């Protein structure tokens, strides 16, 4: 097997991993703080992708600005979702939480189907960076962009959580909500903060999706399934772990896709078998730690 083919495959996979990690980091942040898995996270990504797509095709807006606008739009939408109903279900049993966010996901996907139809669209954006050439290996410019933005997003989140005052308060609220409330932390506001940050990252990731993938109503569902895989690998709640999980997943996916005959169609099936096995060995993921409930 040609070494440069392997290198090309792995490097391309690494850039896609940046996108995957960006999506997974928001999901894992929400879980880390609120202990809720947001099954509608992928739908926020999808809406972000459509916003960036329309801004670019109709108004010629640079996709990077488009991604920022999507981020703000999804931040607002998350805020709305949180204040209208999400805060109510945080005290319910987990199956009710799963069902409520699944309901939201069904609602948004089908709304998008009605508004924009099921067809896949392509945003013919110009390359934001020149292609990267390393010997026989070529990385398209937009892949470099999504890698950089994705990694910056994850790094920013880690910095925010570890180094800022609000990050500290978020961690306190998630570790022990009662204690946090007694020390004067507005726990509800902290939960909302984590949810709208999650929404923001979903919107920005959506912009990245529009840059390198097809845009269609089911794109979010497709991606969030992978994000589940990533957070399960990296450990639910571990933001840094999502980078490593994303790298493992996209490397596995693209290697299988390239070197196994017909393997392109089994992408995430293999990934999921991997997860079931990883979870069987390490029930909290590779980098997860025991959490208080």
């Amino acid at each position, binding site marked *: 097997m040609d070494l440069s083919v392997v290198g090309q495959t792995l490097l391309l996979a690494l850039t896609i991993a940046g996108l995957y990690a960006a999506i997974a980091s928001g999901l894992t942040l929400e*879980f880390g703080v609120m202990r809720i*898995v947001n099954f509608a996270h992928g739908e926020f990504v999808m809406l972000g992708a459509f916003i960036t797509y329309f801004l670019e095709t109709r108004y010629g807006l640079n996709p990077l600005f488009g991604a920022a606008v999507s981020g703000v739009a999804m931040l607002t939408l998350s805020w709305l979702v949180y204040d209208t*109903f999400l805060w*109510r*279900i945080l005290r*319910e*049993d*987990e*199956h*009710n939480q*799963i*069902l*409520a966010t*699944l*309901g*939201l*996901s*069904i*609602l*948004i*996907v*089908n*709304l998008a*189907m*009605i508004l924009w139809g099921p067809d896949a669209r392509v945003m013919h954006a110009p390359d934001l960076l020149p292609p990267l050439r390393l010997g026989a290996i070529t990385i398209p410019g937009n892949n470099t962009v999504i890698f950089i933005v994705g990694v910056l997003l994850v790094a920013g989140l880690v910095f925010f959580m570890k180094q800022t005052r609000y990050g500290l308060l978020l961690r306190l609220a998630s570790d022990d909500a009662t204690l946090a409330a007694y020390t004067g932390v507005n726990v509800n506001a902290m939960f909302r903060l984590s949810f709208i940050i999650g929404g923001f990252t979903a919107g920005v990731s959506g912009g990245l999706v529009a840059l390198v993938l097809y845009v269609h109503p089911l794109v979010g569902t497709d991606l969030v*399934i992978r994000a*589940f*895989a990533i*957070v*399960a690998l990296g450990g*639910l709640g571990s933001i840094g772990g999502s980078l490593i999980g994303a790298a493992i997943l996209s490397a596995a996916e693209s290697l299988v896709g390239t070197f196994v005959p*017909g*393997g392109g*169609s*089994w*992408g*995430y*099936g*293999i*990934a*999921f*078998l991997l*997860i*079931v*096995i990883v*979870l*069987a060995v390490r*029930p*909290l*993921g590779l980098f997860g730690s025991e959490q208080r409930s």
Partner: protein
Amino acid sequence: MKRWLAPVLPYLAIIGLTAGIVIADRPFWIQLMIGICITAVLALAWDMLSRTGQVSLGMAAFFGIGTYTTALVDPVAGAVAAWTAVVLVCAVAAILLGLLTLRLRHMYFAIATLGFSLSLQVLVTAFPDITGGAGGVAPALLAGGEPRWQLVAISGLLLLATATSDILLTRRFRPAFFMIRSKSELAAASGVPVVRSKIMAFILSGIYAGLAGACYGGLYGYVVPGDVFNSNWSIMPLAIAILGGMDTTAGPLLGAFVLRALEELARAWIGGIGYQVVYGAVIIAFVLALPRGLIGFVTKLVRRDTKGDAHPRLQEGRVKS
């Protein structure tokens, strides 16, 4: 309501409705009832599993395994072998998945089961030589393709599932199951066979989901992987059981009626893709308005606390000694 009537009411309702619809012989009602029965079996299967604290998002896996097992075994070995194979294969799959996910708690379990069902769909498409790939399979028709007898057969399956669910709610199993869910260490310490009970619930749940899938495959005699491994079959049982009322037999049954009826109404009024929006909205509204489901709501109205939540009762009853 008379005391003896309440437990047999679900059975009477199923038998009565089925008989009435079979006699009336209206195609629309027959199809609607078949749909309700299949989803009710799935919802009961999901509920049996959830009573041990295992919140599954993988019912579609067993549903699909059931369909594919009948479709692949029936032409080779005949109907009896095919149905036996469904039970055996689903039981084995349930044991394997159950053991693999035994230590997973909460969301990890949900994600692992979701992953299992999604990867099955992909694997089925990836090996077209055995499974027919994306082109699908042609299971033998159930009851010779006569809708009325199909309904009778599926109602029979629903009666079986109802009875199994009721048996799991008797004193023999109920306290053990709910104790595993709320405090599995305590359950183990008090001599409840935790692993065995969890796996048993998994096996029963898997078998019923598989049988439902086998029946579904036999309805039209043609099935593609996207039909049976669709994550709808994983979400719907969860929605129905929760909206109807978990930890009961009547809840999933009632939930199946209400949700399928609402779905059909929405489909008739709004049509196309739009009705799915309503479906999503209804789910959210129900979770917000009736977090304990329809049954929980009714119980609260009647204020009879005979089948309430297991957790507080365990605490009150056991601590005194």
